[in-house]
C-alpha cells in the first residue's frame, strides 16, 4: 500500500471538492480506470454530504491508502453508530444504497484516532 494521505475536514463548502480532488490525484497515480475513479468520487460526495452529520467533534477525517488495485477510505471521528447512520443516509429511493453500490466493502471498526468508530470503505479497480 502507498500513503497514507490524511485529510481533516470541517463542515463547509471546501470539504467535498478538496476530498474529491485529493482522491482523484491519488487514484490517477495508481492507474485507476476512469469508471472506478468516478465511483470513488461518488463515494466521496456521499461521505462529505452525509458524514459531517455523524461526526464526534465537528470534523470529518478521511485517510486514503492505495494498494496496486484497491483504494481504502477510512472515514473517522464518527460518533457512536455514526457509521451505520452514514450508510443509511446514502440510500437513494429507487436506486438503493449509493455507498454499497460503488464500493466493494464497507465495514465498521473501532476508531484509531478520535471518536468511537470509523467506517472503512474499499474500492477495487
Amino acid at each position: 500500500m502507498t500513503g497514507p494521505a490524511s485529510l481533516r475536514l470541517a463542515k463547509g463548502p471546501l470539504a467535498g471538492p478538496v476530498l474529491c480532488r485529493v482522491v482523484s490525484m491519488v487514484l490517477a497515480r495508481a492507474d485507476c480506470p476512469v469508471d472506478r475513479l468516478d465511483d470513488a468520487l461518488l463515494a466521496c460526495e456521499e461521505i462529505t454530504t452525509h458524514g459531517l452529520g455523524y461526526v464526534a467533534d465537528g470534523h470529518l477525517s478521511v485517510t486514503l491508502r492505495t494498494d496496486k488495485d484497491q483504494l481504502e477510505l477510512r472515514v473517522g471521528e464518527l460518533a457512536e453508530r455514526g457509521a451505520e447512520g452514514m450508510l443509511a443516509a446514502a440510500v437513494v429511493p429507487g436506486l438503493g444504497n449509493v455507498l454499497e453500490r460503488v464500493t466493494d466493502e464497507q465495514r465498521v471498526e473501532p476508531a484509531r484516532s478520535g471518536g468511537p468508530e470509523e467506517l472503512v470503505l474499499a474500492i477495487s479497480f
Partner: protein
Amino acid sequence: MMRETTAIGDGGPASTPEAVDIALLLPARAENVAIVRHALGALGEVLEVDAQTLSDIRLAVTEACTNVVVHAYPDGSEGPLEVLATLNGEELTVVVRDEGEGITPRPDSPGLGLGLPLIASLAEKVQLGHDARKRTEVRMTFSLAAMAA
C-alpha cells in the same frame, strides 16, 4: 500592496490554535506537492476567487511545500508534510508545516534560494516560526478581496 514577512520564535503567533477548515497530511515527497496544489484548486470551485489570485496562492503554497520536500529532511529520511487552510471571511490562511530541520541557511542548498522571497511577494503576510511541538511553520495569509480588486 503592503507585504509583511515576519520571523518569529518557538511557540509564537505562528502556533496560534485556530479552527482549521482543511488539514492535509502527506509524506513529504515531490509527487505529493501536486496533490496539495490540486486540492487548492477547490478554492476556485466554491469561492469567487479570480484566476490570478488562485494562481498566486497555488504558486506560493507549492513553493512552501517544495521547500519542505527539498530541505526539511535532507538525510533521506521521510517525514510529514502538513498543509492547513483556514477561511476567515475574505482572508485565507495557509500553514505549511514539517518536522524537519527548520529554516536555516544551507550553503549546499540545491535550489536557487528564491523560495521565501517568492512566497513573500505573493502572500499578503508571511510568518516563519515553530508551533508548540517545535514543528517548522510557514504561515501565509492571502487577502482574497484585496487581491481580486
